[in-house]
């Protein structure tokens, strides 16, 4: 199975390492060359330097035959646009897009995009953690 990870920050790099360890072929894109450092000295997947929105780079990095694409650059709007390109134009079956803004996350989820919103998860986790002590304080 082949996955393309776009954006190699804390999240993208950790996802890449875990999937590689699980036996996936992993191809990573990041605009900064030093992001390769996050993947460790013995990274055995592909690494491409460039803008994730660059269609020729997406092709070179193997989007056309990827089984899954994870879009997790630091720009919500870039992720939204690249994710839609992966799903609609390249026909990638599994496209997962990180969107930090809960409002845009909800909007694009309702339009069929597979969205992960860490901010929303944090809001729910924090609220639930506070609610959990309600009983103890009452």
């Amino acid at each position, binding site marked *: 199975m082949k996955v393309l990870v776009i954006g190699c920050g804390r999240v993208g790099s950790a996802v890449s390492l875990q999937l590689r360890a699980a036996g996936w072929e992993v191809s990573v894109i990041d605009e900064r060359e030093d992001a390769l450092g996050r993947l460790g000295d013995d990274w055995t997947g592909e690494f491409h330097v460039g803008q994730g929105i660059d269609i020729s780079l997406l092709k070179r990095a193997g989007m056309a035959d990827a089984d899954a694409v994870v879009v997790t650059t630091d720009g919500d709007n870039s992720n939204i*646009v690249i994710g*839609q390109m992966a799903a609609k134009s390249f026909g990638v079956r599994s496209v997962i897009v990180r969107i930090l803004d809960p409002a845009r996350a909800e909007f694009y989820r309702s339009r069929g995009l597979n969205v992960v919103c860490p901010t929303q998860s944090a809001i729910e986790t924090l609220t639930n953690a506070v609610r959990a002590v309600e009983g103890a304080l009452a």
Partner: protein
Amino acid sequence: MYLLIAGGGKVGSNLARALIRDGHEVTLIEQRPGRFDQLEAELEHQVHRGDATEIFVLERAGIKRPPDVVVAVTGDDEDNIVICQLARDGYGVETTIARVNDPRNQPYFDLLGISPTVSATASIMGLIEHEVPEHGLIHLLELGKENLEIVEIMVDREAACAGKAIREVELPEGARVISVGRNGKAEAPDASMQLEPGDSVLVILEPGKEDELRKILVRQP
């Protein structure tokens, strides 16, 4: 009309000025604090500060009414796409106009149906193509909603259609010759008009059928 303009750079701010002068109601959204202060001094309540890809910023600026037209002219293509998608699909805005900053991003706009788009590079290329005296095909106008475009093409000396009446020329399905230019004059032709080599022909047709048209009007028999 009520227009919402996202992006208060040179394009956005001058658009806003011109539209206000023409009596339209305009809200301009600008994100950069320094630029916002300048614009607010001039346009007062007609400019809002914020990121126009944030839904609450759009709502504060009046997207729910909704505007007749949303114009996305920020310097960031991804932002312009998202603004148009939010406006059209989230709030039923019927007309969105987007600026393409980097022409390499045009496929994203096309794929997502963001139309019409305006690109300085594409406009200048169109003007240059128009000046080049080759037997090429020039895109003059795209009518996105109608799925039609108007192209200009010069009849080649050895083209199969040269010397034939328009009614005898097998144009691509749905295509029509709307003007024939000869010796510096253009006229709306009838079906009996003969096409001559060197004629500059305007054709309206569906996008994607240009190659078929080229074979008929340019390639040798």
